[in-house]
């Protein structure tokens, strides 16, 4: 049964042996694959074939993985349900008639349906963790700078990271081991070994949470659905029984995180997506008028509604006279969010919250109300603003719908969140 997890099914063979030999990996369609089209879920790029591999793709091949295809996604990563894709929605294999979450919905669905052993997604404001939570699988958003973004088609480049999606914490950690580490093609990558970490992620998935101190930000729990909160507290009780303890922490800044996140993400998107003007991508011909008019028509035709909305809002936020009111304020809020997380993590090994405040929505339910969709990201976006690592792990179900629990760690503290999550799944 097909859930429309893939935009392009293909087989790209990797090296004969390596840590991922014999395993298939689904790759989100905003990660460049040489000679295989990379659409970003957009009509603008429906025939774009990159001439080069993203660094993570080269690393997958070197590790012996077989790439099974390019997965469906919200157009350019802009969505929480995978319904803004120009290639139709993906259905949630773990919850019939429901969305798989987004924007890496195809990757999570491929893993949940067994159509790939592992998958890569990208997470700008929750785009790995949300679909992992909705589809009942594991997803990791690494520390900003741990994984190379070279070849990842940018939506909001100061926020996003490529990360693994897998059926178990250990498998997600194995995939992270393969893709992590500095890259000369990405000047923002940093070496975990030089920043207090190391790359032995799979070994950290030992389920040992004895003595683990968990901080629980009340702001990220109180507003969640009742069913979700119940599953969350049950999971915390489970961890307590295994020797962990918890205390509540306050993160007053997260009240502004969603606003700050969307201003920054949309601003960056307005610039990152400017190159798609019909000259080299999308429909380039036959329009009357000067260059600007021609560009405008190509963009009007090639982009979907949500993408156009975000480009317009981002352009506005950066404009003279509004720059200080929106973009600069959002940057100030980002600095405040970082500071709040640093403080909370100084008294806890990890922070925990529900990944998503709600269970998966019904297909077609949320597209009409963008604001509602944006607010569903309340628990995930603060982590991207703070550049921190986070993992979503299945914690149980409410009314037969998967619920994910999110652990957040300090920068380059991937082992800590992997260890905590491995006690649950």
């Amino acid at each position, binding site marked *: 049964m097909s859930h429309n997890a893939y935009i392009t099914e293909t087989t790209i063979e990797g090296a004969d042996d390596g840590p991922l030999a014999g395993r298939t990996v689904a790759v989100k369609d*905003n990660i460049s694959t040489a000679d295989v089209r*990379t659409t970003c879920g957009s009509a603008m790029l429906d025939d*774009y074939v990159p*001439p080069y591999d993203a660094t993570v793709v080269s690393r997958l091949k070197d590790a012996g993985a077989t790439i099974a295809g390019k997965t469906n996604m919200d157009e350019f990563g802009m969505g929480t349900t995978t319904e803004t894709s120009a290639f139709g929605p993906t259905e949630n294999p773990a919850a019939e008639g429901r969305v798989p979450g987004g924007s890496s919905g195809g990757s999570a669905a491929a893993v949940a349906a067994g159509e790939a052993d592992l998958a890569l997604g990208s997470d700008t404001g929750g785009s790995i963790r949300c679909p992992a939570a909705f589809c009942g699988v594991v997803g990791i958003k690494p520390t900003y700078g741990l994984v190379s*973004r*070279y070849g990842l088609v940018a939506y909001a480049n100061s926020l996003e990271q490529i990360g693994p999606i897998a059926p178990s914490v250990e498998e997600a950690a194995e995939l992270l081991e393969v893709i992590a580490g500095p890259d000369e093609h990405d000047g923002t990558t940093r070496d975990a070994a030089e920043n207090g970490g190391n790359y032995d992620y799979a070994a950290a998935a030992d389920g040992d949470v004895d003595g683990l101190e968990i901080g629980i930000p009340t702001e990220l729990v109180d507003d969640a659905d009742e069913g979700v909160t119940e599953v969350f507290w049950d999971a915390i009780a489970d961890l307590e029984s295994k020797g962990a303890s918890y205390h509540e922490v306050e993160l007053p800044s997260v009240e502004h995180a969603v606003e700050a996140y969307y201003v920054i993400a949309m601003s*960056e998107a*307005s610039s990152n997506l400017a190159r798609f003007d019909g000259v080299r991508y999308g429909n380039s011909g036959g329009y009357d008028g000067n260059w600007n008019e021609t560009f405008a028509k190509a963009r009007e035709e090639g982009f979907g509604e949500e993408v156009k909305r975000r480009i317009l809002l981002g352009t506005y936020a950066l404009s003279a006279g509004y*720059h200080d009111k929106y973009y600069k304020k959002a940057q100030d809020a980002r600095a405040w969010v970082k500071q709040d997380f640093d403080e909370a993590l100084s008294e806890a090994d990890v922070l925990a919250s529900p990944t998503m405040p709600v269970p998966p929505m019904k297909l077609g339910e949320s597209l009409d109300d963008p604001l509602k969709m944006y607010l569903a990201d309340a628990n995930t976006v603060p982590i991207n603003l703070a550049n921190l690592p986070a993992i979503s792990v299945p914690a149980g179900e409410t009314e037969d719908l998967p619920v994910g629990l999110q652990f957040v760690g300090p920068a380059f503290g991937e082992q800590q969140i992997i260890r905590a999550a491995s006690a649950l799944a």
Partner: protein
Amino acid sequence: MTAKAVESGDLATVIGLEVHVQLETETKIFCGCSTDVEDDEPNTHTCPVCLGLPGALPVLNEGAVEAAVKIGKAIDADIPEETTFHRKNYYYPDLPKNFQITQYDAPICQDGELEFSVEGQRTSVGIRRAHLEEDPGSLQHKGGSIDTADYTLVDYNRAGTPLMEIVTRPDFRSPDEVRAFLAKLEEVLEYLGVFDATRDGSLRVDANLSIVDAEEVSGDGTIDASVLEDANRTEVKNISSHKGAEKALAYEETRQKNAISRGRAVEQETRHWDESKGITLSMRSKEEEKDYRYFREADLPPLRVSHWKDEIPIPELPDARRERFQSEYGLSDEAASKLTSTKQVADFYEDVAEQFDPDLAATWVADNLLGELNYRDMLLTDVADRFDEVTRLVELVAEEEITAKNARETVLRSMLDDELDPDTIVEQEGLGKTGEDEVAAAVTEAIEENPDAVEDFHAGEDGALNFLVGQVMQKTGGSADPGQVNQLLRDELT
């Protein structure tokens, strides 16, 4: 502006520049593509980064930063602790990403100045800032101009070439100051080894020009900012040389002064310099204030550069070298200036001066060689691979194997025109200084063959001796030293 100033023509010109120079680095500013593009096929020096392909990321070429730091040191600019990059967002088909990576609020150089002389007067102009950025690609309009072309081709070979944008203060008061400044700037950049003036499009200048009441210029040459703010200025684009800058701005200065004297307002606008017609033209399109929506380029982390200033050495600059040439080699200011006009000239001079007499070297490099090259519209660069031959020529003169006159008028010219080496020319033309015996024999012969002249000499006629010298010179094929011949004749006849 006061009516009186307009009537009396008591007007002052104010000019500020934005100079774009291409930096000489092996690879582009954000990728590994070669910058040595010359006339290669379009789009052959490209990669995902400089083509702006989706997903490609810029990685800063530290060579470009080093070049920028050198420039900062040469213009005595402040170099910040940390420098950052911004995106300048605008749509244009030569811009692969539809934004340009440039610097905004933390440029690599701030508050510098450059000294230069114009008609013998030393002066200096303030540099507000100088920052790094990437060059866009280039467009070829087929079948017409930018507005009328049937189609336009894009070549990204140039895209990503490192540029330094140098922004001056509005300190220029005349077009010839601009020309002298630009010549000096090129000279300094070449000395630093960060610039190649012979490369097409390596220098591009935008100039702002306005006219104010001369009374507004204070004693020290400064003008109140509010006066400049009020004056309507034009921005002249498409200037590509220091000669072109002088011509364009002289035209623009006259155009504005004429408008003012006829009581018409100068329109604030952008004008295009048409080099072939020698005029500036209005770009017509109403220049609305552009909003580039600058914001930080998150793909390039902030770069700490403060310590680079101490770690990166720069070579001796033209002014210092000119002064040293005067003190070390005893040259005049004029000769020293000529000999330091480019690094290549100065290096060559020092090479020759170390082997022979510095004065002789100065005459040969500054007067003879540069003079003959200039006459042929050639540059020293054109004979760079023949420095050994020129040095050999100076050696022939220094060791008195040929006369200075023959060396200059026959050998040097033939070297340049016929591309022969000096020894070959000396041999072919029989210019080798004749042996003493041969000269003595010629003297005896001349005396024997011209008894009338000998008689006239004894009678005290001055012309007679000159006649005899001429006879000897003829016999020796011009290779004898006239002074020596003169002396030998006197010795024989008295």
